[in-house]
């Protein structure tokens, strides 16, 4: 997806995102950028998906290729059974599916849930289960691009890793582009192919996390969180201790051991 001089509310965006990547967004108004990328509303300026320019005439076609999963979905009591939520989405969005029941079961299976969840009330689920279900619902339309608000919020380490493996599978096996927002710089650094840092409704930095986080001092001066494992290496290197940049504490530990006399 590419946006050139794209104006939306108070935003003016110039951004190019490659497909089939896992992209993380952090910073003020991160969820607003996600909303803009969802094309729910068309702003002014140029938006392209692939080589085609999006206009009010073809936008519906492209909206269908994007699934926008918000952190909080409030479901009224009469529409809180997961099967009903899924059926409603299929009807409302005119999703063409040969076998609806199979598609619903498959969507649940992809996220690691059994078909028995179809009969469950979404409001009774734990937060990690709800995250899986809302993703399963988002997969019904077979989107090319999946946007997920606060994708890792509230997850413990085990569930965070499971979620990452799921996103990587969606990317590698199903060729999806996954764009998430998060408050956690460790997640951006450890798992994302690309990251975007926002400040004052603008893209401050975009690129590969390992390159972006090398700019430790600049990031901290601008109140961006830097993973401690990166800060450690930066501070050590300032003292001429050649500790590499690592993503795992065991690796940095080995490196420290080598350099301590």
């Amino acid at each position, binding site marked *: 997806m590419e946006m050139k001089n794209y104006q939306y509310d108070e935003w003016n965006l110039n951004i190019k995102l490659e497909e089939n990547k896992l992209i993380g967004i952090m910073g003020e108004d991160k969820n607003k950028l996600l909303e803009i990328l969802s094309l729910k509303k068309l702003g002014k300026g140029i938006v392209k998906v692939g080589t085609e320019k999006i206009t009010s005439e073809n936008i519906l076609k492209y909206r269908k290729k994007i699934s926008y999963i918000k952190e909080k979905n409030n479901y009224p009591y009469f529409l809180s059974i997961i099967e009903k939520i899924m059926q409603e989405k299929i009807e409302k969005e005119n999703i063409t599916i040969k076998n609806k029941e199979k598609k619903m079961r498959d969507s649940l299976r992809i996220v690691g849930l059994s078909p028995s969840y179809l009969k469950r009330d979404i409001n009774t689920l734990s937060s990690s289960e709800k995250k899986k279900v809302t993703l399963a619902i988002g997969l019904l339309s077979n989107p090319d691009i999946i946007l997920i608000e*606060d994708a890792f919020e*509230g997850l413990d*380490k*085990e569930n965070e890793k499971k979620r990452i493996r799921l996103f990587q599978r969606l990317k590698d096996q199903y060729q999806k582009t996954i764009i998430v927002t998060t408050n956690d710089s460790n997640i951006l650094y450890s798992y994302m192919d690309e990251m975007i840092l926002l400040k004052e409704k603008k893209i401050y930095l975009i690129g590969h996390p390992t390159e972006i986080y090398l700019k430790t001092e600049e990031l901290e001066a601008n109140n961006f969180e830097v*993973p401690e494992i990166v800060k*450690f290496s930066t501070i050590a290197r300032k003292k001429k*201790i050649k500790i590499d940049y690592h993503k795992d*504490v065991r690796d940095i530990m080995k490196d420290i051991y080598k350099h301590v006399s």
Partner: protein
Amino acid sequence: MEKEMLEIKNINFSNVWLDFEISFPQNTFTTISGPNNCGKTTLIRILEEKIKKEFPTFTIKTVIPEEIVFTMNTIKEEIELYLEGTEFSLEEQKTIYKNTIKQWKLTKLEKEDPNQFDRKNKIRLQLALAILKKPKILLLDCITTPFSRAERKEILEEIQKYQIQEKSTVVMTTHILEDSLIGEYLYILKNNEILLQGVPLEVLEKDNIINKAGLNLPFMIDLSVKLKDYNLLKETELNINKMVELLWK
């Protein structure tokens, strides 16, 4: 003088009778952590009920983010409603309002409907309201989850300031272990039992158990424990600059 204990015995989780007893020294900040679905929210609800029964004279305020609903259309109206029936004059209420929105960074949202706030600001406002009535016991369920690391530190420091000033008891659940360092006691739960308990730093040094429980150890504690295992460090160090100085004097 030993602190009086707030002892809660025979916690009942979803009709499964548990053996453990959980207790909190009064006038302290206790954290309860554990992986997803270990029952943190349920425990907060049970605690609220039990404390109300066993200590009826104590004022309790509970903040559970999923249950936050505001009655009024602006922060000012919400605060006025909260202060209704208190001894504060109108002038004093105005001052309380100004101080509250400044303290909890809600100034830009003065004219907005609190029910339309994002999660972070709903939590900020609910915390502000909870503390207004100076409760003796404050029960907080995973209130730090949507915040960045820097924001969590600010929020927790405000809560700690309140707890020390008013000598109240705070019990907070969180899955973010780093949050527990602000408190004086930590419980880690898993599979409906207490896996670990004690002074936060000492509990967090049991890295093997915590890793197996599926929790994220704060980086500096994780690294400190490993360095100590190799005799490269004597004590856990939380400050990166200091640790680098200690390792390479």
